[in-house]
Each structure stands twice: as C-alpha cells, then as structure tokens.
C-alpha cells in the first residue's frame, strides 16, 4: 500500500553551489600541486647551474686548476 506522497514531501537536499565547486577545485589543485612537488621532490631553492668552459676542461689540470669565479662572501660581524 502506497502512502499519499503529498503527506510526506521530501526535504530538499542541499546542492553544491558554484562557490563550493570553486573551493573544491582550488583545494584539489593545491592538493594535486603538493602531490606533484612531493613526488618529484622539487624544491623552491634555485641552484646555480653552469658549464665549465671547454678550454678549461681540456687544459692541463683541467677543472682542478681552474678557479670558479665565486664572488664570495665577505660578511660577518
């Protein structure tokens, strides 16, 4: 036996709004970005990359005799 539906109308379900979708997308993007960073072990700290000139590499003593041109740190108290 079916009860008269008009007597027990259903409570409207809360629907996702645009705002919730935007927050969910941003949260997913952040979580995804973290997963990418953690997986690739990428770091924000840049490391200088360079190449030793070919003439240095081929010269006697090679890189061992070549002085890298670090400007150096002359600080401290």
């Amino acid at each position, binding site marked *: *036996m*079916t*009860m*008269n*539906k*008009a*007597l*027990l*109308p259903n*409570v*409207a379900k*809360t*629907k*996702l*709004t645009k*705002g*919730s979708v935007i*927050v*969910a997308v*941003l*949260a*997913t993007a*952040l*979580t995804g*970005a*973290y*997963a990418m*960073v*953690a997986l*690739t*072990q*990428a*770091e924000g*700290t*840049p*490391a*200088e*990359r360079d*190449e*030793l*000139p*070919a*003439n*240095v*590499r081929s*010269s006697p003593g090679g*890189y*061992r*005799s*070549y*002085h*890298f*041109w*670090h400007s*150096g*740190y*002359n*600080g*401290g*108290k």
Partner: protein
Amino acid sequence: MKVQCSNCGAPVEFRFDDSLVRVCGSCKSAIVRTDRGVETLGKMADLVPMDSPLKLFSDGKYFGRGFMLIGKAQIQHSAGGIWQEWYAKFDDGRWGWIAEHQGRFSVSFEVPDMQGLPTANAINAGTQVSVGGPQPYTVTEVGVAKYLAADGELPFRLGINESFLFADMSDGVGGFATLDYGDPDQPTPTPTMYAGQWVALAALGIAGGEAAPRDATPAAGKKLACPECNGSIDVRLPDASMRVVCPYCNQMISTENGVLALLGMLAVKAKPEIPLGTRAKFAQQPDTEFVVVGYMKRSAYVDHSWYSFDEYLLHNQSVGFQWLVCSDGHWSFVQPVDTAAITINGQRDASYQDVTFKAFAGYTMRVDEVYGEFFWRVNAGDMSSSVDSIAPPAMLSRELEGKELNTSLATYLTASQVRAATGVSVVDRAVGVAPNSPLRLPYLGWISALAFIVLTATAMVLAGRAHPHQVLEQVFSVPPGKPALPPPPVEAGFETPPVGEEAPGNAFFSEPFDVKAGENLEFTFGASLSNSWAYVVVDLYDEATGQFVSVNRELEKYSGYEDGESWSEGDDLRTLYISPIKAGNYIARIEAIHGSNTDISVFVRIRQNVFRWVNYLGFAIALLVLLGIAGLFRFFHNKKRWSNSGFYGPPGAYTAAEDQDDEDDDDE
C-alpha cells in the same frame, strides 16, 4: 432486503444485512432498520456538489481485500470545510471508512473496545496518544463537525445536522486514526476509535460504480455574480471554496453550501504579483500542475513590528492545496506535512526524514489582505501562531490556529525558478538572507576534511617511500684568509683576477660519487666557529658533461656576555635542499673562506631522497588559508541569516522571557 420508504413508498433495498441506514433514492429520506421494521430519520439535504474520483458502488481493494463503496456522507467542519466519507463493505464482512478531503485519502476501521484513550478534556493538538502500537499517534486536530448529507447505505444511525467532537491523529509513518467523542457538549469519556492508513488513491484500485449524480458533476469553474456589485467573479474551485473576494468591489463573499452571502468589504485591495488563475509546475512535483486560486498578504509579529509577506494558494485536484510564499523577495514552495511525522527535539528543534531542523523563530501571524478563493473561512485579521525551524534550503513551520496544528515544509526557490514555474516575470528583489536561503558554500566541511585527508595521506605515503641515503660527507680544515686565485687560461679571455694574500689551500675536491636521478639533494654545512663567520660553496661537477651545479651557504656564530646576560646568535650548521639533478658521476669542489685568524673545521654532507615535511606544512597552511577564507564567508552569511532569529510573543505580550530567548539564540 427490500423495504418501502416510509416517506414516499418507493422501494428501498438494503444490500447488506448489517447496514443500518439507507437513503431513499426518490425522496432522500434516511430509512433506518429497527427491530420493528423501518423508520425514517428525516429528509436528507441535497448533496453538496463535490468532485470526487470515488463513486457509489465502486469496487476497490485494500491490502488485497476487495470492498465496495455502498454509502457516503458529507461532513462539515466547524471551520466550514466539507469532506466526504465513504463506507466500504469489505469481502470479509468488515466495514471500512474511506475519508476524502482535499485530495487526500485515508482508510480506517473501527477499533472496538479500545481502552485507555484520553478524554475530550485531556486532548489537544500535539497530544501524543499511545495505543500499544510501535509508534504513538500525534493529535493533529481536535474539532467539531456535523453530518450534512448522505447517500447509499450506512452502517450507523446518522443524525442529520448532529454535531460530534473528533480528534484526528497520525503516527507519522502513514498511520491515521480518529477518536469520535460524540456530542461536543457532552463528550463521551470512552471515544470510539477508527484506525487505518493514509493511502494514495491509485493504491485503492477504484473501478466501476454509479455515475455521479447530475448535480454533482464536477465543475471546472464557475462564474458568479457578485451580490454587491453584480461583477462577474471566476470561481475556479466551486466545490471546495468557501470564501471568494470580488475583484471589483473587494467584498468578501461566503460561498458555503452554494449560497452567496456578503461578509463585508475588505479594507485593502490586494495586488498579487502572480495573477490568480496562473498555472504553475514546480521542480518538487514536476508532474503536477497547480492553479493559483488565492492570495493573502499576511504579517508576522517580529520584534514589536509587523512584517508582511505574500502567500499564494495553489490547487491541484490530485494533491490538494499547497502554497507559494514570498517574504522579502525570497520565495518558497510550501507543502503540507503530516504533523506526526515531525519529531520535536528538546524545546524547539525538530526533525523530519532524519533531517534536523534548528529552531529559528516563533511569531504571531495575522491575515492582512485576501484575494481570490479559499477553502476555509478566512478573513482579514485572522490570527495564528507559528514556529519555524530550518535546515536550508528547507524550513518546517508548525502553525497553530485554534485547536488545529498544521505543519508544512517550505523549500527555497529563486526568483528565476518561480519565473520558470509560473511563467510570470516576478522581479528578483530578494533582501538579506532568508531563514531558508540555501547555504553559501555547502559541504565546506566535507571538502576541507577530504582535502586534508588526501594531502596528509599523500605526504605519509611518500614519506614512507623516501629512503634518504648519503652520497658525501667530508670534514676539512680551512686556513684563514681569502683563497689565492690562479690566473685563468689566457685563451679564455678572462680578466686577470686579483691574487690573494694567503696561499691557496681552502678549495677541496672530493672523490667521485654517484648522484641518482629523481631524488632531491640535501646539503648540510657546518663550521667550528667562535665569534666568526664562514662562507662555503659546493660545486657538483659532472665530469662527463662539464656541467656543474653550485650551492652555497654562509655560516656565523657570535656570542657574548653583556649587561649581566649572555647572548648568542647565528647558525654554524645550516642545511639547504635543491631539486633533483641529472644522474651521473660527480665530484664536489668545496671552497670556503672565513673570518677567523686560525684554521677552522668545515663539514659538508650531501644526502639524496630526503622527504620534506616542510613542503607538506606549506601546502597545508595554504589549504588552511583557502578554506579559512571560505569558512569566514560562510560564517558571515549564516550570521546574517540568524540575525533575524528570535522567539516573539503575541503583540503586547513582550516579557522578560523574550530577552532570555534572544540570549539563548545568541549563545547558539
């Protein structure tokens, strides 16, 4: 059994041995069987034309048992409404009652010798009555009604125009019961109980039966002439309407029992935004087309002022009456709910269909303007009280008028949804936040929890997979002074560098080591410093390609004693991380200078595949900021909603208790 009508002599047939009264088809006299033969109870009034899908002598089934509708009575509520009761003779010999009012049907049977039922004095709307079943009944209405007219055979001695006191009850899960106390002036202490179920018409499988009497042919609509101005009034529900307002002269007209009577001119002429007669379909009942048949402007007494809102009465033949309400430009589709299906939690909160509705406000309500037609004796100035509880976008309203407790479920609609439903270009003029305005950013809690769970789970899995391994650890002694820089090869064309004061000796080369691809590198620099500084550069040189990667760190450590306190600052041990570099065989060139006058020890360690919790922390904070901003947005929206909450007494009855209520709400 065939007898002759004691009034007109026409043959009258009692089809069943246990039917008591038969209405004579010729003269409408009620013929009652007695031990001494037949008597007449008097002439019945003509049936009020009422549209009904049920017909006399129709067959049907209820829980597999067949029945025939062999009699019916029309009963008028003391508030004016008329409903029909049909008397069903079942195949197993029982009598059943099928009540029909406003598109709703209930089937019930007499429950003989029911003990422990409440007396008439002890029963009110909202009273719970337990009769031993799994669910107690809740009284939805205590009222007085009288028999107006009847037809066919009846299983009881019906007294025309005899009033009786009744209490309607339901159990919230489809159960229905009525207590009949008889004479309202001298109610019996042992009421008769009729119990059964609310049912859908289709489930009764009604078929066959006599054609409806000619004067009871359903009327799709009628035109009436206003007794005051003779204006033509469209009456869309001539069977059900009891009040009609003349659109020309604004007279309230009673249409009870087909007799027009002027009830007085209304002070204000209502101007509904949605015209009467408009047809509408709502998403909540997409297969049901409603007609707007009435309009009321009502007011709620809130915080010492009356705030008006609009109510449109909607009608559909199958589902009866429902409402479309507009308050401060916020629309709601309102459906009646079985009061017994509501559970009151504590003082004010309610739950329905496992959804908790938080108590929002209680007010006194007043009818201000009326327009169109209504199925009850409405009038401007009518008062009632109501308590609203919310679970946005839904709202439960429990409205008490006299001894009748009506519960309804409102579902929020946007103006564009109302436009789509009605085809009327209602203006979007929503102000503020309605009690049942949809939540801003719903499911934020779930989104937050899920995001943090995924973030943390990712971190934990990757932390478990990361196995740090050392590729270099070296300690060496660095003499004071700046390094002596040999001249570069002439052909390189570099400018001649300055020559240092000290001899070379502060650049060191490691043994070759392997660096793996896809793994970050952690550099740890340390120096034995005392009130001095050091600067360390590590160049990872790939012998195969000539490429190198260079990192550096400055270290310093100072301490002292000043003004009775010792102090220290700086770090002589620091770490930095770089992203993975190309795999290969590398040599580390480590160069250091420092400010000490003596040799210092410099420590360098390189590790790979080190899990970085700090990255997790950074992203967790970013997520927290995002969700925190969203949460604040939602919080302030909800705060605006609840700023309208409150429980107010009737006008002029402001008490200290009201202040207490307000404080309670603030606490929430």
